[in-house]
Structures are given as structure tokens and as C-alpha cells.
């Protein structure tokens, strides 16, 4: 749910990075944070355990610039990927405007990807959304690993709606900004559609 503030001339949108545990959601945010001009970003917050597993969420505010005299701000969040943090995931999905599903390309994580994707659909429905109503993109992360599943196979399992998808090596930054750009674009187009005459 975007927030349009006429007084401050700002538009705020919320993007959530979803996906199985250790898939690279936080790494995506970390890379965006590291490579963004300090003027365009706020502080990155990570609510993580001592072993750097996301406990509640990571948060990164980004200023993208201006459209029609309005500052465009995106708030990026990640969910905790581990299965037992489902209650927290539901909370973070509230008010979401767009989603990046970060899949782990390792062949042995395929089941975890599918489980997480189905969990996302279920949680969205609980919040009154459908997967068709929320703009989303898919990222196949960790493409550099020797045990990566073929992209075609991953597409077949995860991208049945044929949304924009990207191969990535988040730790090196490959594909990270392409993914972000695609989802922000979809969100803005969706906003235009929702508010358009």
C-alpha cells in the first residue's frame, strides 16, 4: 500500500524480498546499500541473530529521485527465510507494493524454493492479496555455484506466471540492480494503473 504525501510531496512504496532461508535476500540489500550514493539511502537496519540469520527483518530506505515533482521513496524489506519464522513473515508482508522472490539455485534447495513460494502465496492471501494482484519478479540467485539447477528447470517450477526473472550472483552484485529496477518499474506502473483515470 503506497503512501502519497501531498504536503511533503513524497511517494513511498514498500518492496519485500521473499524466499527460502540463506537464499541471499539480505545479501541483495547489503549490495544495494554498499553501492548506493550516500545521499540516496538511509541507514540499513538488520534485526538478525548472532549468527547473522535474519530474525525479524532487514530494512533499507532508498530515494530514487523525482517524478512529477514528487520524491519517490522505496522502502526495501527482507523477511526471515527460515520456516519457523512464519508469523514474522506475515507481518512484514502487510502493506506490500511489490515483491522480489529470491530463489536459491542450488539443486538441493529446489524443494525449499517451492515451499517458500507456496508459503508466500498463502501469506499474501491471508492479507487479502492475491499473487496476481501484487507486482513481483523472481531472482535465481547463486548462479555461480557448481550445483546450480538449470534456469529452465527453475522457471518451470517457480515462474508459471511468466513474470520478469533474473539470474544473479548477489554476493558479487550480478543481477541485483536489474532485479531492483524491474520490481520498482512494475510497482510504479501498477500505481499508475491503480490511480490512473
Amino acid at each position, binding site marked *: *500500500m503506497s*503512501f502519497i504525501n501531498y504536503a*511533503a510531496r513524497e511517494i513511498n512504496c514498500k518492496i519485500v524480498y521473499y524466499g527460502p532461508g540463506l537464499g541471499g535476500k539480505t545479501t541483495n540489500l547489503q549490495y544495494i546499500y554498499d553501492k548506493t550514493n550516500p545521499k540516496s539511502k538511509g541507514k540499513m537496519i538488520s534485526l538478525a541473530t548472532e549468527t547473522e540469520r535474519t530474525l525479524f527483518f532487514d530494512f533499507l530506505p532508498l530515494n530514487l529521485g523525482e517524478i512529477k515533482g514528487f520524491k519517490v521513496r522505496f522502502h526495501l524489506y527482507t523477511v526471515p527465510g527460515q520456516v519457523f519464522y512464519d508469523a514474522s513473515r506475515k*507481518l512484514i508482508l502487510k502493506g506490500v507494493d511489490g515483491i522480489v522472490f529470491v530463489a536459491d539455485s542450488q539443486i538441493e534447495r529446489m524443494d525449499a524454493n517451492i515451499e517458500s513460494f507456496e508459503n508466500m502465496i498463502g501469506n499474501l492471501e491471508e492479507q487479502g492479496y492475491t499473487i496476481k494482484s501484487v507486482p513481483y519478479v523472481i531472482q535465481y540467485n547463486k548462479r555461480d555455484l557448481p550445483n546450480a539447477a538449470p534456469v529452465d528447470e527453475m522457471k518451470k517450477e517457480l515462474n508459471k506466471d511468466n513474470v520478469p526473472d533474473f539470474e544473479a550472483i548477489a554476493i558479487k552484485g550480478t543481477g541485483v540492480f536489474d532485479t531492483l529496477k524491474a520490481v520498482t518499474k512494475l510497482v510504479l506502473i501498477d500505481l*499508475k494503473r491503480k490511480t490512473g483515470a
Partner: protein
Amino acid sequence: MENTQFILYEEEYKKINEIILRLAREANAKFVFLVDKNGQLIAHCGDTEDIDTTSLASLTAGNIAATSGLAKLLGEKEFSVLFHEGERDNIHITLIGERIILVVVFDHRSSLGLVRLRVKKASQELKKIFDELTEKIQKEMQAEELESPFSEITDEDIENLFSE
């Protein structure tokens, strides 16, 4: 209702600011801010210069979200007031209606009792404004009169955001 767009106009923004300014003064608070449940900062006043208000807003919303998760587990509808006590500063958080969070930060110059008293009055006034605002947005949406800077954006505008 929760999934409808949230829009704040100049008129309501002014009224809201007046209320939180008065609240900050009457409660002897360091600063006061309003956040929506999704973590977006709506308004703030007081001594916020050295404070990262964006992070504060997001964490407050996270805090409220986690607490209302707890409430539901216990069969409560909501815990509508939260209080965090620190060595120097304290935070008083109140839910207003279903969507807005009012946060008051204060130190030894004030007290929990005074803050609670002042917050109660301000909450009622704020609730009225936000209820009216929600009604206004819904009416405009139904009538398809919602003016938005986004109704006329072009692909080029979007592309330009990423050109730098």
C-alpha cells in the same frame, strides 16, 4: 480497508501537525511522531535533528506488528499502548484507530502520567482526522476522482529514475 492507498493532503497534514506540536509542548516531550502501520513516517515534530526518523518509523511499525501478533496469540484484539523505559529516554507508543501509530519520546522533564494524559486527548483528535481522511479517500476512489501525480506518468519518467 487496510489495502487501500494512503493519501495525505495538505489540509489534514496541517491539522495533524498542529495537534502533535501541541502534544509535544503540553507533555514536555522531546519529540513526537506519527507513523502508519506499514512503517511510513507521516509527521514529526520536536528535537528530531539528530534522529534517524525513517529507521525509527520502520522499527516502531515492526514493534507494533510484533506486539499485535502477540496479542492475537493471547486472544486479545490489540495491545494499544506500549511503553519502553530507558535510563535517559522513554518511548510511549499508542495505536490510533487501525492504522496510525503515535510515538512520544520523553525524558526526566516529563512523566509517564503526564504523557498518558496528554496522549489520550490528542489521540481522540487525531483519530477523528484520520477517520475523515479515510472516508474522503474512499469516496474519491469510488467516484474515480482520485487525483494522483502518478496517473500521468510515462515510461520515460520511470526510465529516468534509473538513468543516473
